[in-house]
């Protein structure tokens, strides 16, 4: 097997006495879309926060692109090629849509003019060019989610962490976002995606990792995971989208 | 060396009062997410209220505490809507603007106090002021003034009262819910505006009462406010922001620092020492003494 782009190695994260993530290990291969699913409170966002540098793992390590990045701050990881979106979207409300993306573009394009040009191109990909000069706070939820993705894209990442990017969108918007994600994979970006909407994640993921109560309970292709009794039991009572 | 027990006891008694200031201060921060820059001014007004009411009625300041609480709580309840308006403001950073607002308010209060109360330092007399317990053992002697002990009793009562309020009443439940998650609390029927009003009223009331005590134990002056604002802040940051259990230790530490400077060194350096300690601790452990802060 070719070397994985991301290797989560026995990662645990504790908050005081609460073990949010416990001994989770899995790898993400280059160029694949890996889905991360599990009931509410399973520890998915915590895991995301560990992988993207917002939390240092209590135990275990995170190896990205062959190097141990456990505990490195988010901006260092961004420089190494990890981009992420936030479940609760974080636009810069007082700034325009374009300015939001330009800030991310500065990472690889230190000069203002280059950054703006690059930001425009990203906005074309995500379809926000007609809102470029409007305040980010004036966007609808769908727009804000696209802005989230635009900002992560402007970093020119090789690995994207998408945290519930389609929650709250109408079916048409969901399909558009799925197309976008598949297009990103086609460009060679590896994607780790957390999502609750089952039809979405089942459709686009190459493989899945399932968490429950902070532990990994299954890993494999969507078909395998869907048939896994432990997974079914974990979701018993959960509404499917 | 003979003064050491005195310094220690004085420090702890002072610290008890600082606990109350810090707890009330944190309460407002936890629920409304506002740092009230005017906390020292509320204390100052309380101290003056104690002084003038005592002069007017002849009642011992300790008996005036309930009245002061009610009046100040009322003022706080009335003032809170303006703060609320600033907090729900349209500008990008309402919390920052709320800070600026309370700062302006504090400045205005200081000016008003200087206008009406003059520049002198006063002291509120109490029947307990003159009495004290005196211990002597070998070369160690200890004077524990009654009024400072009263301060300790006050601190215990208020802490107990707040604990009870927060843990065992519906109001307290609403307050804790609001502090943890505003939207969810609202969905559960907690009226944020009204709860905020009561919380702020509680905070101003407590600060006023604490001011009366401080006026009796220490002194009253129009310029005393900023020092207590800084003390409140010191305790809260040292304890670890949001970590209430750390407040007593931090408050006692502050009391000890202050009493040591009063007894052994030049009280003028107290503020510098306070800041020095804070600086070092922040460098070493930004989340407070117990590393439990936010």
């Amino acid at each position, binding site marked *: 097997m070719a070397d994985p782009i991301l290797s989560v190695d026995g990662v645990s994260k504790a908050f005081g006495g609460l073990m949010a993530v416990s001994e989770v290990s899995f790898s993400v291969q280059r160029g694949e879309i890996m889905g991360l699913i599990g009931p509410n409170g399973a520890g998915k966002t915590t895991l995301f926060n560990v992988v993207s540098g*917002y939390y240092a793992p209590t135990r275990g390590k995170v190896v990205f692109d062959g190097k141990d990045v456990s505990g490195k701050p988010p901006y260092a990881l961004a420089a190494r090629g990890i981009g992420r979106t936030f479940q609760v979207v*974080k636009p810069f409300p007082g700034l325009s849509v374009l300015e939001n993306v330009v800030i991310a573009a500065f990472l690889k394009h230190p000069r203002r003019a280059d950054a703006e040009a690059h930001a425009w191109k990203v906005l074309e990909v995500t379809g926000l060019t007609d809102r470029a000069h409007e305040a980010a706070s004036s966007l609808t939820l769908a727009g804000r989610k696209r802005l989230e993705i635009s900002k992560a894209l402007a970093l020119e990442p090789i690995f994207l962490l998408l945290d519930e990017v389609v929650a709250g969108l109408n079916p048409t918007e969901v399909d558009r976002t799925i197309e976008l994600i598949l297009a990103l994979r086609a460009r060679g970006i590896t994607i780790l995606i957390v999502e609750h909407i089952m039809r979405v994640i089942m459709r686009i993921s190459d493989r899945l990792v399932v968490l429950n109560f902070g532990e990994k309970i299954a890993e494999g292709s969507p078909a395998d995971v869907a048939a896994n009794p432990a997974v079914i039991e974990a979701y018993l009572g959960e509404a499917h989208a | 060396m003979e003064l050491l027990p005195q310094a220690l006891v004085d420090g702890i008694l002072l610290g008890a009062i600082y606990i109350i200031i810090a707890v009330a201060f944190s309460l407002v921060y936890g629920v409304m997410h506002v740092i009230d820059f005017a906390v020292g001014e509320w204390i100052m007004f309380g101290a003056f209220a104690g002084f003038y009411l005592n002069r007017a009625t002849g009642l011992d300041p300790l008996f005036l505490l309930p009245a002061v609480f009610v009046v100040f709580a009322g003022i706080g309840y009335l003032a809170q809507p303006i703060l609320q308006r600033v907090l729900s403001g349209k500008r990008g*950073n309402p919390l920052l603007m709320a*800070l600026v607002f309370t700062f302006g308010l504090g400045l205005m209060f200081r000016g008003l106090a200087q206008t009406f109360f003059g520049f002198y330092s006063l002291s509120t007399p109490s029947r307990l002021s003159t009495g004290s317990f005196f211990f002597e053992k070998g070369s160690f002697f200890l004077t524990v003034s009654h009024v400072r002990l009263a301060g300790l009793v006050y601190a215990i009562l208020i802490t107990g009262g707040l604990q009870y309020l927060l843990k065992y009443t519906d109001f307290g439940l609403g307050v804790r819910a609001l502090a943890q998650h505003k939207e969810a609390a609202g969905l559960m029927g907690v009226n944020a505006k009204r709860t905020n009003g009561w919380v702020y009223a509680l905070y101003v009331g407590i600060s006023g009462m604490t001011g009366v005590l401080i006026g009796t134990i220490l002194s009253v002056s129009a310029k005393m406010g900023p020092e207590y604002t800084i003390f409140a802040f010191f305790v809260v*940051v040292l304890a670890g922001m949001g970590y209430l259990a750390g407040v007593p230790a931090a408050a006692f530490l502050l009391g000890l620092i202050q009493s040591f400077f009063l007894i052994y060194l030049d009280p003028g350096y107290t503020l510098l020492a306070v*800041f020095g300690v804070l600086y070092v601790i922040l460098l070493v452990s930004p989340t407070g003494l117990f590393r439990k802060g936010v």
Partner: protein
Amino acid sequence: MRDRRLLGSLAAFALLLALPAVVRDTFFLRVSTEAIMWIGLALTFDVLAGYTGYLNFGHSAFFGLGCYTTAILMVRAGWPFPAAAAAGGAAAAVAAVVAGLPTLRLRGAYFAIATWALARGIQQLALMMTITGGPDGMRLPPFLDPKFFYYVMLGVVGATFFLLWFLLERAPFGLKLKAIREDEQGAKALGLNPTLLKIQAFVLSAVPTAVIGGIFAYWVTFIDPASTLGDLVSDQALVMVVFGGMGTLIGPVVGAVLIFAFKTVFWAYLAEYEVLYVIILGAAIAASVVFLPNGVLGELLYRRGPRKPAASEPAAPVPATSGKAEV
């Protein structure tokens, strides 16, 4: 700020340069020098307040540091004025890094109180040390040339203005600061190092302030802790920025001019009511927050109809059942 505004600023600067040639009255020249000084102090305050979202109530500490460094070097070590003033700036840079490292990690509100406490502590220090002359202050070698000081102040403040314009409005730095201000956690994910940026902003805010302080010291010839390290410098800078409009460069200029005008008139006629000034200052700050949340400049721009919608109006959410994908 578009290039039109830059041209306007350059024109205004040119006018100010020509002023002494036209106006001979030394009193007017001195008032103008002080007005320009306050513009400088308001601008540097806004770097941290408006752009970065951190209120530095220790602003007066940097001002006073510049005053005293310049005074001490000139009086006790015989340094020439330019070197002494520059040294004040250097001292402020060091102080900003040292003070900023632990305090900038705190959230904005706590930073405000921390710097406030620090400023008071420094004032206390100046009152107690002999090298600073204690409460009696220090006298600098007298040099009475209103035109000289006018030009020096204008030069420094002007340079500061254009440097800030470049760094905050043109270069990426300003936008990055705003990102930190808007959402620090989110900014980290985009590759920004908040602590580094904040310290840079802090230094940028501190150095011109100290140099201005050095000029002020030499200009007024006498300094003491009360006038240079007291709250008043920070308080006035704060009201100028809040009243004028935070997060812009023109806002503090407007605020500085207006508040300074008020201050001059007040002290000319109501000097006995010193305490009243503090009350008005406090009330002005509180009132500005409540009634002029975007400052005078912000309100004017808002009335004229903004180029982009006011950053405060979120659009109504589009119903999820619409056929078209709304963005």
